[in-house]
């Protein structure tokens, strides 16, 4: 029997270490050991252990803690695995309908062991690529139809061909692991869970364009990913799979890691290159493209983590196999990171061409507390909110773009009726205005002005002309900004206005926040008939805003109240209500 413990950041944050302790203590002196693997994507049930029985059957246990881990270990020792904590059939639907290429090793291989990756078929594609040579590799990538997974969906083979065509002895491969969309985490999961898959893809790209050095630019917020990448590179060097004349092929390659320093704009490729050279991460206009003049002013091919993670599969299985999945213009699979108000958040890899509904409801089980879905946000700060009645949109680059959102890196934030769309627009605009590098005026000043208007609306001081001003400003920033950050920054505002104009109008005309979220427009109130005077809320209130006599109804001082929601969470009689838009009521 094998015991695979999910040991990614999410697993560790949910208590994987106590589970490890519990299992290890019980297994001491037995034949059983615990294998640490990356996140298998079932984040909603962390900490997770997958038991693989001798006959190959797999049993998944979730939401473990030390005690239940001990129980699991004891039951394994008796040869009869326990029934408790198994994921239900309904929960296991999460895995059905997925097709895993990028994530195929996550949760299966030991990310800190090169042997484990090789046992699972790793580096076979590299060997094959070495014998194929540059032209055939690029041809295979072309047949596969692979498009960049970093957001824009640019055909990968065109970039590789361009970098190959650039004449120079010194060329570079850069992996964009900056994963800047707050709310997306697939790149982190792949780097933590299967780092060799990314390295192998980069090396194959190196063969294709004639580069000898790969640089990985990874966010500093991902310490575990950095650690595992370093370990993986070290092991490759030890085994002679890096350095000069790899496998006697005449091909030489090596890696370098650079940690980002917390700037969203550095995900943009020209800003990333500036940052790699030790400068402020400010974008420049293209051309020249990185394929002509990139890192150290040499031809450079930049791809995203997930793009590289697809490469070894394509080389092994052929471009045709990849292209047989997906839609006319978008081939293969895509990893989506589900979070927000969704019941089963985690990582989902599906063939392109499913609908958003298929993912949110079919795979992820719908909305938390069975609430009603309001929208799904795709593309993060550069994307938009897709409303409920459009969730049957078939997922591919073009279809998603038609809604006003973008595919982006694959973050899907699910929103329910409690999410205020004005607040979300304000949230993203706050983000982009802070992250704007300040170089061009439309982005620097424009995003700030848009934010000010949104704040005014959320504070109940909006004017009727504000909506039109936002649209006008948004359109001019989109066309006037220098780089992709500014070009796309207005999208979250424009899509929410397009699909949820009524919410903006409620804030402006009725001073009402329908989702009861915007603090300036809501008031907490105790319903006298329901309050039993138990005093619990008044003791919980962090700012002493609730007062009263025991056994008679309490009252909330609206001046003192900070709308933190503690009282609602503690009241056992449902006696506290949020009121908004009193003028109307």
């Amino acid at each position, binding site marked *: 029997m094998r015991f695979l413990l999910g040991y990614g950041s999410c697993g560790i944050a*949910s208590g994987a270490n106590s589970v490890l302790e519990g299992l290890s203590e019980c297994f001491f002196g037995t034949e059983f050991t615990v294998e640490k693997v990356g996140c298998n994507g079932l984040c909603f049930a962390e900490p997770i252990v997958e038991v693989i029985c001798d006959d190959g059957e797999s049993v998944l246990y979730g939401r473990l803690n030390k005690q239940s881990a001990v129980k699991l270990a004891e039951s394994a020792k008796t040869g009869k695995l326990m029934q408790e904590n198994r994921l239900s059939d309904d929960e296991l639907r999460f895995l059905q309908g997925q097709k895993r290429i990028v994530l195929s090793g996550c949760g299966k291989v030991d990310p800190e062991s090169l042997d484990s990756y090789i046992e699972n078929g790793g580096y076979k594609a590299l060997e094959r690529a070495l014998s194929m040579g540059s032209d055939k590799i690029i041809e295979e990538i072309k047949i596969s139809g692979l498009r960049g997974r970093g957001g824009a969906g640019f055909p990968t083979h065109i970039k590789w061909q361009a970098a190959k065509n650039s004449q120079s002895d010194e060329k570079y491969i850069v992996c964009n692991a900056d994963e800047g969309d707050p*709310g997306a985490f697939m790149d982190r999961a792949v780097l933590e869970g299967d780092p060799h898959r990314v390295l192998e893809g980069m090396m194959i790209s190196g063969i294709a364009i004639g580069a000898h050095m790969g640089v990985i630019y990874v*966010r500093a917020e991902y310490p575990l990913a950095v650690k595992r990448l370093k370990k993986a590179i070290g092991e490759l060097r030890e085994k002679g799979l890096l350095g000069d004349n790899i496998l006697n092929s005449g091909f030489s390659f090596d890696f370098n890691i*650079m940690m980002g320093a*917390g700037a969203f704009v550095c995900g943009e490729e020209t800003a990333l290159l500036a940052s790699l050279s*030790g*400068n*402020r991460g400010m974008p420049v206009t293209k051309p020249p493209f990185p394929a002509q003049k990139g890192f150290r002013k040499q031809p450079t091919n930049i791809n995203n983590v997930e793009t590289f993670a697809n490469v070894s599969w394509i080389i092994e299985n052929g471009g045709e196999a990849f292209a047989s999945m997906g839609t006319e213009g978008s081939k293969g699979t895509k990893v989506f990171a589900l979070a*927000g108000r969704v019941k089963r*958040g985690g990582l989902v890899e599906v063939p392109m061409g499913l609908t958003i509904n298929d993912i949110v409801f079919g795979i992820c089980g719908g909305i938390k507390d069975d609430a009603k879905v309001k929208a799904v946000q795709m593309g993060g700060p550069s994307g938009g909110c897709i409303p409920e009645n459009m969730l049957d949109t078939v997922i591919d680059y073009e279809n998603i773009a038609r809604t006003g959102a973008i595919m982006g890196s694959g973050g899907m934030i699910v929103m329910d009726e409690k999410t205020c769309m004005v607040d979300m627009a304000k949230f993203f605009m706050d983000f982009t205005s802070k992250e704007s590098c300040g170089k061009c005026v439309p982005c620097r000043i424009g995003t700030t002005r848009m934010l000010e208007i949104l704040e005014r609306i959320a504070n109940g001081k909006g004017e009727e002309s504000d909506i039109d001003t936002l649209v006008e400003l948004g359109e001019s920033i989109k066309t006037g900004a220098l780089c992709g950050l500014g070009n796309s920054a207005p999208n979250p505002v424009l899509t929410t206005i397009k699909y949820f104009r009524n919410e903006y109008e409620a804030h402006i005309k009725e001073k009402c926040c329908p989702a009861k979220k915007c603090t300036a427009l809501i008031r907490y109130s105790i319903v006298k008939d329901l309050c039993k005077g138990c005093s619990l809320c008044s003791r919980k209130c962090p700012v002493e805003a609730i007062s009263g006599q025991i056994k008679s109804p309490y009252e909330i001082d609206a001046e003192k109240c900070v709308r933190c929601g503690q009282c609602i969470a503690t009241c056992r009689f449902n006696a506290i209500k949020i009121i908004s838009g009193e003028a109307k009521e």
Partner: protein
Amino acid sequence: MAGKINLEIDAVLEKYPEPEESLIAVLQGVQDIYGYISKDAVEYITEKTNIPSSRIMGVASFYAGFRLKPVGKYRIMVCMGTACHVNGSERIGDTVKRQLGIEAGDVTEDGLFSWEEVACLGCCSISPAMMINDTAYGMLTQEKVIEIIDSIKKGEGK
């Protein structure tokens, strides 16, 4: 003290033969040792490498990851990313602020805690999330935050 600082920075600089191109890594190395980038450290790097201090400060102030002020022994990073926002991270931030009695970016008087808002910790599926030094915490509630902070205080004998 100054002598020791210089030795430690020397050790960082030694790792990077091209400090100009590796300026970000150099500053990260310095920050790892002291918790922030001090004026003295900037001046010393300039002295050793001839990189103008204006350029060093330009880089240090551009990136949110660099801190120009000291941090607490326990550095709390509250995620304000999209997933965490949808799941109520503002209240988590407010709770931390109330429990510590300091604004984001500041350090408690005893030097034990500092806190800041960050964009996304990659733990979105267990949001709302925060990180204390290198340890992430997920599925937070206001009560859980209070518990976590209290248990650190207790461990420190406060």
